[in-house]
């Protein structure tokens, strides 16, 4: 390990750490409200927010762990990580236990863990390494090679079935590829071809997924079933109006008209209690957070760092966009959480881990003249 360099500290992106922590803190506060459960005698809270604090602490440690080594060492590890993820996913498909109709979890002694998260990370790193090794814009053969590499684990994830995560990965890679740039011919054919291909995807969807899309198009067709979430979450957010109903005072959230309110629909709880002003503030925080990552990508001294940051950018960008759009009725219901606000162990830790990687890139943007 290189001797400690004071510049590492001075170049660290302090704003990114700050905004990460602020978002996480808001998330815990919001979960506190979303955790309350109505009983006859009043409100009791269950422990989502406490557990989330624990996950956050673990995540924070992981974040530091992701900062101490030089991120460029990861370049040599990408294939190992990739192989490990594919192996785990395959094992899961073959021997995994079904929980809630899907094979997503590997249960270790004390914690269960989703290989999907590891797969996301390893695909992201592999793509960053792959793209950084290419000087010019992507042509067909290089793009196809990348797509093939990405599709192997992604298909296995979709088969779990976890369509949300699968699409999430594809979108991240898609974003990174756009940042890299495509040869004009490739770009134009994709521009025409992809929209034509999309409808054929309908036939690969499970019934419940089709149901969600149909319900998205018309929530009233099933007001007590799958449309219920959408309708109730929109009522929650809309009824927040300008200033919100106040902390712990959201009737939709507190009376449990909102299902999934601590996970995918957590934004609805926030919207109801903090109103338009609070939501704009939260949205601004997310945007500044994202912008910090873009800055890191821009100032990175090497391509790998830049694409790594871009990958992390899209990882968060798509989740924020899709989750908010879903809760706001702009998209069908897909199981994608809102970073730092939704409850969840795996996702919280990986979020911190990815922020750590970006910080790693930012710390080392002016050093390593020796390469």
């Amino acid at each position: 390990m290189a001797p400690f360099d004071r510049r590492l500290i001075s170049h660290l992106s302090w704003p990114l750490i700050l905004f990460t922590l602020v978002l996480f803190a808001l998330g815990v506060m919001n979960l506190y409200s979303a955790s309350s459960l109505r009983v006859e005698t009043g409100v009791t809270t269950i422990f989502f927010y406490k557990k989330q604090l624990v996950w956050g602490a673990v995540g924070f440690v992981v974040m530091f762990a992701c900062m101490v080594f030089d991120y460029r060492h990861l370049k040599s590890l990408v294939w190992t990580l990739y192989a490990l993820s594919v192996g785990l996913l395959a094992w899961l498909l073959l021997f995994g236990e079904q929980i809630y109709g899907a094979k997503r979890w590997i249960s270790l002694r004390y914690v269960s863990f989703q290989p999907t998260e590891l797969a996301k990370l390893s695909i992201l790193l592999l793509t960053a390494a792959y793209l950084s090794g290419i000087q010019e814009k992507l042509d067909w053969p290089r793009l196809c090679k990348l797509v093939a590499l990405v599709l192997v684990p992604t298909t296995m994830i979709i088969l779990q079935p976890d369509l949300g995560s699968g699409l999430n990965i594809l979108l991240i890679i898609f974003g990174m590829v756009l940042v890299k740039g495509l040869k004009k011919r490739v770009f134009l054919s994709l521009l025409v071809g992809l929209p034509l291909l999309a409808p054929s995807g309908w036939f690969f969807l499970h019934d419940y997924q089709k149901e969600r899309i149909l319900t998205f198009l018309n929530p009233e067709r099933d007001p007590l079933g799958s449309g219920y979430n959408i309708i109730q979450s929109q009522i929650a957010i809309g009824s927040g109006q300008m200033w919100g109903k106040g902390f712990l005072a959201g009737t939709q959230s507190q009376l449990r008209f909102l299902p999934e309110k601590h996970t995918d629909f957590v934004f609805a709880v926030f919207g109801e209690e903090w109103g338009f002003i609070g939501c704009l503030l939260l949205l601004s925080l997310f945007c500044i957070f994202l912008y910090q990552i873009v800055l890191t990508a821009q100032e990175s001294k090497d391509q790998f760092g830049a694409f790594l940051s871009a990958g992390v950018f899209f990882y968060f960008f798509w989740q924020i966009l899709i989750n908010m759009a879903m809760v706001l009725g702009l998209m069908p219901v897909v199981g994608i959480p809102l970073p730092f606000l939704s409850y969840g162990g795996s996702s919280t830790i990986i979020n911190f881990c990815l922020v750590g990687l970006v910080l790693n890139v930012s710390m080392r943007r002016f050093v390593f003249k020796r390469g």
Partner: protein
Amino acid sequence: MANGEQLNNKAGITLMQLLVLGLFFLIALRLWYFQIYNGQEYARKATDNLIQQQSIYAPRGLIRDRDGTILAENKPAYGLAIIREDSRDIEAALRQASQWTEVPLQEVREKFKAGKERVKPFKRQLLIRNLDYQTLAEIETHLMEWPEFRIITLPLRHYPHGRVVSHILGYVAQADEKELQNNPELQLGDTIGKQGLELSFQEALRGDKGLKQLEVNAQGRELKNSIIEEPVPGKDLTLTIDLDLQQHAWEQLGNHTGVVVVLEPFSGDIQALVSKPAYNNNLFVQGIDQETWHGLLSDPDHPLQNRAIQSSYPPGSVFKLVVAPCALNNGAVTPEKEFFCPGHYKLGRRVFRCWRKGGHGWMDMREAIKQSCDVYFYKVGEKLGVDAISAYARKYGFNAKTGINLPNENPGLIPSKEWKLRRFGRRWQGGETLNLSIGQGYTLVTPLQVARHLGALVNGGYLLKPNLIEDAEPTVQQELPLKQSERDMVIQSMLAAVEEPHGTCWRLRTKNATVGGKTGTAQVVKLKEEDREKETEEIRYKFRDHAWMASFAQQGKQTYVVVVLIEHGGHGSSAAGPVAKAVFDHLFSKE
């Protein structure tokens, strides 16, 4: 080298910056649309969510007898309901419910599953009805630990007199899946009339539910509780039934299977309508268990059947009250025309017997009715032919429902040539006309039809709709095609049957009352020659004849028609006669 790797994709960075900007504006605009532009609308919907509406049960109308004695009432009962959204663990809750109430867990689960679809989120779903007080007390003490449970009050129908009036009242029971589907106003757990008057007067008795509005705050506490719509109680019914009389007639039947109808001939009002055996209608209200239900269905005595209107029997000699005026009306015979009864009548190679082995000798119409001579009526019937009798009997209201306000009435059957051809594809036989003329063979009537017919004889020829509801205007359904002289003839013969020597109804003789009657003995199967010699007691029960007594009596201003039928009772006079006599005694003792 690091410097040489300066990013060559400025465009990529710009793309990401634009995406951030786009994200901000897209979401901000959508938020504005929801929270500012449509904010008030959503706020109103959120408030609507806080308002829970509960319906208030309307008390079902009471049913009383003519003296005001309560026959059907409502008692408060308690049920256990669950609100699914208040439950953290439905399975545990169902287990607990099963433990409290001792209803098997499987049954509770099934009830929960079946009802789930019918109950909206946050509404109370009735799980178990009719908690007894001990269970209720136990649940109440633990209710705090189980936020999903609610105790709800439901009115429970109660019939204090059980079997004695069960066929008239019928019963209410929980609406089944089909009824719930057909009537959106019904909620899970609601009861509706399923049989008897409870069914035919369901609309009047049920009343209209009220609506209560509960407003809760974010903590789920009730803020306001207001009644939006008061429930409208169901209308009470007062019947023409006299419970004392009904009870008395019930007792007089003893262990017999049978029917007693007491009818006021000038109004059509029914004072007693007993069908025995009967069932305990309270069993159905509380939800009858499968075993009891199948027991009732498979009981050879058919206790669920209201024999007075739902069973039809061969009328036997009672039918002579139709054939005799028919013969006069057709001019087939005059009242004075005499036929000789040697005890049997030969038609072709078949021998038709008179009930009196030795024969009655020379008989005119009055004597033939009085002594119920079969041979006389064989000869009259032969002259008339089946279709004349059949057409005439239909004018007396046979072969048609009486229109009483009770469900599932049996119309009975009066055969005709055409009917037989249609039903069996065979031609009518001459012998069958002879059977018809003494009320045997295919002929079937209900006891209530006979009572209505007798009522018309007594009241001057008006067939009135039998009525169970007090103060109903009498409804004339038909006028009998009966001349005064013909009517006198029939009535005089019936009086003679009671008062004169050799009359078949001597058992009805009552002091200070004018009584007329006609017996009937309806063959169940054709008895073999050797069985005819036996006394009734020796013939196996199910082969014994049904015993009829159709009678009327007048004392002062009171006139009543009493029809008694005893299944497998043997001879009409000996089996049914004493019951009718006891009923008259009761009726006239009240003065």
